[in-house]
């Protein structure tokens, strides 16, 4: 450290020192970092329980220095329900990708939202099955080429991309739904605020909170991290609009 300078930003202590296995530029690691900054700021490291999914973030328990529980593929919502009911004073989050939350785990997700289980969903939507080699996911955009839709997604055969935020915001007992991203520092700061708000609402016991992250997948989309930001801007945000879909009414 240079003399006369003071430290203003460093890697959060709640993130382990282990090097993350994610591809360069992946938003998974950005969200890991933002989430752990929130945990550090709220000082809830010993009261937080995370549920790992199956997918790219299957090793999240190696990086997030909080209590973690691995769930079977798609069943993170069910495991999170159990953890939250057994330990109601803990901050519980399920960290899931689109293959986990929106494909194999749709039923668990929708029923947990319908019951209004008091935990936070963190949903990383990159529109592709990243870990298994870039196959088409329910959230793949119309016309997007993947290894299982080499001519682009044909909506006549495969249906439209699933908008999870719009779906879960219909449930009465879901209190906070927001879609965020982190393509720019400003959006990353907004994402962090959204995560913090979700944890605060959970702490008050208001109901289910759901944060969707419109993410990238440079390897699966076959582009560089910088090019993936252009794709996000041109194609993803028009179809998956960012913003707050539902929030609790503020008491005056």
């Amino acid at each position, binding site marked *: 450290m240079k003399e006369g300078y003071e430290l*203003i*930003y460093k890697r959060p202590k709640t993130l382990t020192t282990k090097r993350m296995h994610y591809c360069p530029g*992946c*938003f998974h690691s950005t969200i890991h970092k933002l989430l752990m900054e929130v945990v550090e700021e709220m000082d809830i490291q010993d009261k937080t329980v995370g549920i790992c999914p199956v997918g790219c973030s299957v090793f999240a328990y190696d990086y997030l220095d909080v209590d973690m529980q691995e769930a079977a593929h798609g069943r993170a919502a069910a495991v999170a329900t159990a953890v939250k009911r057994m330990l109601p004073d803990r901050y519980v989050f399920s960290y899931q990708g689109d293959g986990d939350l929106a494909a194999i785990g749709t039923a668990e997700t929708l029923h947990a939202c319908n019951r209004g289980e008091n935990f936070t969903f963190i949903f990383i939507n990159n529109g592709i099955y990243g870990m298994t080699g870039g196959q088409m996911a329910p959230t793949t955009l119309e016309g997007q080429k993947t290894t299982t839709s080499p001519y682009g997604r044909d909506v006549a055969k495969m249906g439209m991309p699933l908008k999870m935020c719009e779906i879960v915001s219909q449930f009465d007992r879901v209190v906070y739904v927001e879609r965020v991203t982190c393509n720019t*520092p400003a959006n990353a700061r907004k994402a962090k605020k959204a995560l913090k708000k979700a944890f605060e609402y959970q702490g008050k016991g208001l109901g289910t909170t759901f944060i969707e992250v419109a993410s990238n997948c440079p390897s699966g989309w076959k582009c560089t991290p*910088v090019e993936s930001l252009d794709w996000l801007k041109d194609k993803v945000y028009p179809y998956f609009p960012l913003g707050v879909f539902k929030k609790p009414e503020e008491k005056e």
Partner: protein
Amino acid sequence: MPAKGYVEIAVEGCKGCNLCVINCPKDCLALNTSDTNSFGLYYAYLKNEDDCIACLNCAVICPDAAITVYKKAG
């Protein structure tokens, strides 16, 4: 007068995704394409220390939390 800053980028932590380089408002950072770290990846470095304003943009966007930011005291 804008704040004066200084960043440290962990060479082994950097994966060379270039996101900090394109998001630096003062064009202080660059990707070192003549050398690699032990993983065989290019890494970013502070090219122009004098212009850094400690805005934290690079640190916030860095996916691998490899950036530490310092600000001149006072």
